[in-house]
């Protein structure tokens, strides 16, 4: 019997998470498991048991960086990082606050800049992140200044038609 939540995750991610037999290879190899509440193998189990509420509120789905160590090692060929992507989409669609607020903020700012300019723009994005995130304002100021002094964070976006072209794609993708 496959739970409704597992079916939804499968649909969004193209995986079959019910194949997991909990060998723990994913959890053993996960680089960020120390910071997680449950770990990747338990995330799959919770989804299979329809435990949506704690999963959607968990840090775990936002801490996954998509390094794909789990996907490469899984004996049942489950791409667990893709399943995490699916869980993130469900959590957002259902209005849950992200368990890692600043991780979501980073992705939103990054994609917002790409939607506007067609390319990433570090100065713009980092500036907004500094102001909007809960990370103390002075953190990373030294490194940021170091990058700036080395000409690595140009203040103006480069000239290209990429922004215009990306905006056309977004326009066409609207239903």
């Amino acid at each position, binding site marked *: 019997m496959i739970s409704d939540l597992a079916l939804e995750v499968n649909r969004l991610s193209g995986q079959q998470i019910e194949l997991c037999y909990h060998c723990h290879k994913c959890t053993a190899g996960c680089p960020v498991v120390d910071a997680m509440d449950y770990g990747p193998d338990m995330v799959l189990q919770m989804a299979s048991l329809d435990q949506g509420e704690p999963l959607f509120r968990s840090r775990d789905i936002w801490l996954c960086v998509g*390094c794909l160590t789990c996907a490469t090692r899984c004996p049942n060929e489950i791409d667990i990082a893709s399943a995490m992507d699916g869980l993130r989409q469900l959590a957002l669609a259902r209005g849950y606050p992200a368990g890692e607020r600043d991780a979501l903020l980073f992705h939103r700012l990054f994609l917002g800049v790409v939607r506007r300019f067609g390319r990433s723009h570090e100065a713009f994005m980092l500036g907004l992140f500094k102001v909007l995130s809960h990370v103390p304002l002075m953190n990373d100021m030294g490194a940021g200044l170091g990058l700036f002094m080395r000409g690595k964070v140009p203040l103006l976006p480069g000239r290209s038609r990429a922004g215009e072209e990306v905006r056309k794609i977004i326009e066409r993708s609207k239903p």
Partner: protein
Amino acid sequence: MSYSYYPGCSLHSTGLEYGLSTKAVFAHLGLELNELPDWNCCGASSAHTLDHDLALALPARNIALAQEMGGDLVTPCAACFNRLKGADHLLKSDTKLREHIESLIGFKFTGEVAVRPVLAVLYEDYGLIRLKEQVRRSLDGLKIVPYYGCLLVRPPEITRFDDPDNPQVMGRILSAAGAEVLPWSHATDCCGGSLSLSRSDVVRFLVGRLADRAREAGADAIVTACPLCQVNLEMRQTSSPKLPVFYFTELLGLAFGLTEAESWWGKHLINPRPALAKIGLLEVAR
């Protein structure tokens, strides 16, 4: 040989010296790189977190540009390679998705563009024998560990590049340039990627462990092929002395005796000059 070239966003910002050294090395070897006109961001890790249409459409538009230009599509950035190659795989394997993306972008996918990382082009097309012949100043005495990170080698059924657990290509290329390539345990362990800003504590821990293991192996420097790994490794190392972090293309340029090499060292957050001076390579590069 001529290739279409996708630098990606990082090579115009935090990975400046990766782009400069890639172009210099290719020009020196007589390999032509033609930058895609008006290329756009590949979407990196943020697009597939938030917007599935865009996660595929962004890299697919670049593939469309490369199709028009012809030839293999070469990219230095591991993350861009992963997104472009992943999109290529999906466009080839999912007809419904392909038709949807084709209509969004307004092109017809032919599947003829091979997406390849710079490492693969140098190793497979140019070859170790000829690379060795280009060495003017051997990196003899430079002890390094090659760091591949995640996205060049995983998932192996899509990236189809080198061994996912024990990759060899970067080490072989740097050996050909004379460097002493040391075996180590963490060549494909994650640096923490996009958590660098929101959870710098997690990334400091992961980067600290990478640097510790590199030191334990006896390395004077870490060598990468990814601009995201490189900036994390430089920004988030805490224990001193900090290990310098080179792009493999920078060390190739140095070994080829390119005069531009000196202008790359100043771009680093961790000064790599002492490691080069230690083996008498600094004055040569001036």
